């Protein structure tokens, strides 16, 4: 884990647009797809916005993972599996499944990136067996 981010701030807010992200979780046996949707906008959100901030946090987990993939284009599947950001992303994904089901048997996920008008598939995981 990188502790530098705790002590050294980056004040480069919104320096460029980058991209928008979308996550789809596919449950193989249940033949269902779960996505992380934007929460509804509440009028009180300028005071408390737990749903919105949690949603942005989940997307930042995706972003951390993607930034590593973009930095290391020769990265192997084995190396990806050992990444802490990947392990953490799996936890986030399992939490999303748990909101709807007790378990998911088998699942995989896809990450889409939107740079201009359309989302394009950027990463597809292997199929996982459900383990808690």
């Amino acid at each position, binding site marked *: 884990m990188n502790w530098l981010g705790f002590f050294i*701030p980056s004040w480069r807010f919104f320096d460029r647009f980058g991209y928008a992200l979308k996550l789809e979780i596919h449950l193989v046996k249940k033949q269902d797809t779960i996505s992380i949707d934007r929460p509804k906008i509440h009028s009180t959100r300028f005071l408390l916005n737990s749903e919105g901030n949690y949603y*942005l946090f989940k997307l930042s987990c995706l972003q951390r993972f993607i930034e590593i993939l973009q930095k290391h284009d020769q990265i192997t599947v084995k190396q990806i599996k050992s990444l802490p950001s990947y392990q953490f992303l799996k936890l986030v994904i399992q*939490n999303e499944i748990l909101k709807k089901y007790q378990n998911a048997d088998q699942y995989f996920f896809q990450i889409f990136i939107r740079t201009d008008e359309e989302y394009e598939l950027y990463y597809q995981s292997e199929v996982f067996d459900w383990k*808690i």
Partner: protein
Amino acid sequence: MENLEFKLLNLTLRLFAVSIFIQQMEYSLIYLKNQKNKFIKFPFFLLNIITLCISCVCIFDPHISFAPYFLASLMIQYYQFQGLFNGGSSSMSHQVALALNIGFFLNHLNLSGKFVLYYIGIQGIFSYWIAGIVKLIEPDWRSGHTLRQILLFSNYQIPLKFKIIAQNHLMTLIASWVTIIFELFFPISLLNKNLLYFFLFSFFIFHIMNAIVFGLNRFIFAWLAAYPAIYFISTQL
């Protein structure tokens, strides 16, 4: 410690405590809505509740001896989320907590209040100024294109009316340049008290607008906690 330093340090502590209070309220709500969650577990919720109570006490009775507890809880949360939970607002809270802690350990010297206020104030000034520079360097910011893309296509929960406004190129161009100019010229305002009040008030409105447009509510009090320190620096020039 001089009277002004003491008053500004107390105000910083109070505003920082409000910022922590809001963060802990949100973590607690996330836990209560996602109880099956695998990384926000019960001990973490317990920590939220304790920090919530301590921040409440600190709002009404601010004291620098609360600082080590706040720093410890922020570090645990950083570990829990494997990084920053909320980008810039988390960073600013960390910087204020670090400065307060160094102040706490330097307390027996007479320098602590000054050091804390200088450190937080410099971080506050840099946060606006650096953000202004990086925007000025980017051609897409100068043309209004980046702001338009953020409003139209980003993952933020942006109300429809602002997306409609973003389709007007002139509006995003003006908004981009107003942001760049304010962020870039902020350090100059330290030389004149009235100009500083104007800038700080404008930035406060800017943070409220960011909360309304993007849902970035945590930035309001995270940055407000740095304002007394910025004011302190202006009194020293």
